[in-house]
């Protein structure tokens, strides 16, 4: 982690906020019944973004949107290689039978975290469907997973690292690419 020598900012707060608002509108267009949608932030980059998205979406629907969180750590396939993940709370309603769960994350890359998060949600119950909303899609997928709602697609080199910085209120403030 230490020798990330070069970093460049590729997206600024204005562009990010617009992209994230558009994602909220796309979700509202695809799922017209607001009460059925639960936004579930993936620990931990997705949690604050899910909150943000929930507020925007709530004003579009004109009704509060439920927001939860999911910890993918216990369902990862690479625990032996990376060491055990630090665990953070999973907060989901027990009964999701008629709900649309929208998983929310900051950066989508290999898809392994999303796969683990889907399993973690399934361990709680069986939602009507699961969708995926990400602020940044940087490519390099290793699993057959694709996002339903994307803020920005960002072509990157595999060696680079994409970092989303948030404001204190949880709004995305900048996206930086760090070269290893």
């Amino acid at each position, binding site marked *: 982690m230490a020798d990330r020598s070069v970093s460049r900012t590729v997206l600024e707060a204005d562009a990010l906020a617009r992209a994230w608002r558009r994602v909220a509108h796309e979700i509202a267009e695809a799922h017209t019944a607001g009460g059925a949608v639960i936004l579930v932030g993936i620990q931990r980059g997705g949690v604050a973004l899910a909150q943000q998205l929930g507020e925007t979406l709530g004003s579009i629907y004109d009704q509060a949107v439920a927001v939860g969180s999911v910890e993918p750590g*216990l369902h990862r396939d690479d625990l*032996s290689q990376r060491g055990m993940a630090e665990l953070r709370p999973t907060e989901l309603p027990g009964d999701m039978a008629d709900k649309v769960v929208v998983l929310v994350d900051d950066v989508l890359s290999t898809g392994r975290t999303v796969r683990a998060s889907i399993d973690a949600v399934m361990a709680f119950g069986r939602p009507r469907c699961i969708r995926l909303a990400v602020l940044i899609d940087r490519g390099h997928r290793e699993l057959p997973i694709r996002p339903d709602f994307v803020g920005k697609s960002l072509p990157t080199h595999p060696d680079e690292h994409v970092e989303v910085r948030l404001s204190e209120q949880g709004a995305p403030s900048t996206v930086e690419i760090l070269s290893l």
Partner: protein
Amino acid sequence: MSWHRKNLLDIESLTAGELTTVLDTAREFKAVGERDIKKVPALQGKTVVNFFVEPSTRTRVSFELSAKRLSADIINFSADASSFQKGESLKDTARTLEALNADIIVIRHKAAGAPHFLARFLNSHVVNAGDGAHEHPTQALLDVFTIREKKGDIAGLNVTILGDILFSRVARSNIWALRKLGANVTLCGPSTLVPRVFEQMGCRVTYDLDEALANADVINLLRIQHERQRKTMFPSIGEYARLFGLNRTRLAKAKPDALIMHPGPMNRGVEIESELADCDRAVILEQVTNGIAVRMAVLYLVNGGNAAEMNA
């Protein structure tokens, strides 16, 4: 996250940060235990061996359930059914278990230091489930977990440990954990079972039960371990119950919201008046529930110990 250890051998060598990591991890595992589906795949494909050279039911069952909830395979290997009776050494038996590709060996042994001995030559992860009168780390972790859950913070609490301290690995592990997390620890019991030498661990030692209970936030009662004792440690069980047994009158000396804890198995009418064991301040059964969360956290963390060491 502060955890890079391959084994859990004792509490003495842990830092406050490592203790807190185990407690925080256990909190998330407790939430898993409250769901409809209580199983997670974190240790899928791993093999855990419960290597119990000293009889124990509750600790063994707790580890067994913890491993199962993590999706590990677990086998029980106990002394009475084993090759010890045929004269095999501890080292050879442990090597045999490792040759079965055990990833984690949970050991309970009557000799202090047995887990440390195994850890020196085994590649498997070693977890101490109680070694002689030395330490019982997971019991201490579940005790401080329960206290933290009820009281919020360990630092500054007055914790009284009552009973057989000398022969108690639970007491030693609890003292280390509580002192590291900033609690004030008072020990009390018959002078033969509570030697002054424990003051060197930063504890207050008193033989006056009322004084020991004054202002206590937590009272942890330890069982009189008949099996570890010579007959001469105190005159009679009746006298012990009269002088050191917890009853309603004595409980009134402690803070009104003081917790009553007991690692079990308890002797009703000896260290605790029967009705107190069932009152709402007793958290004895919650300790059992929390034991699973804490042991899940320990198995989970030591399993990652290797990788964490390499990435550190």
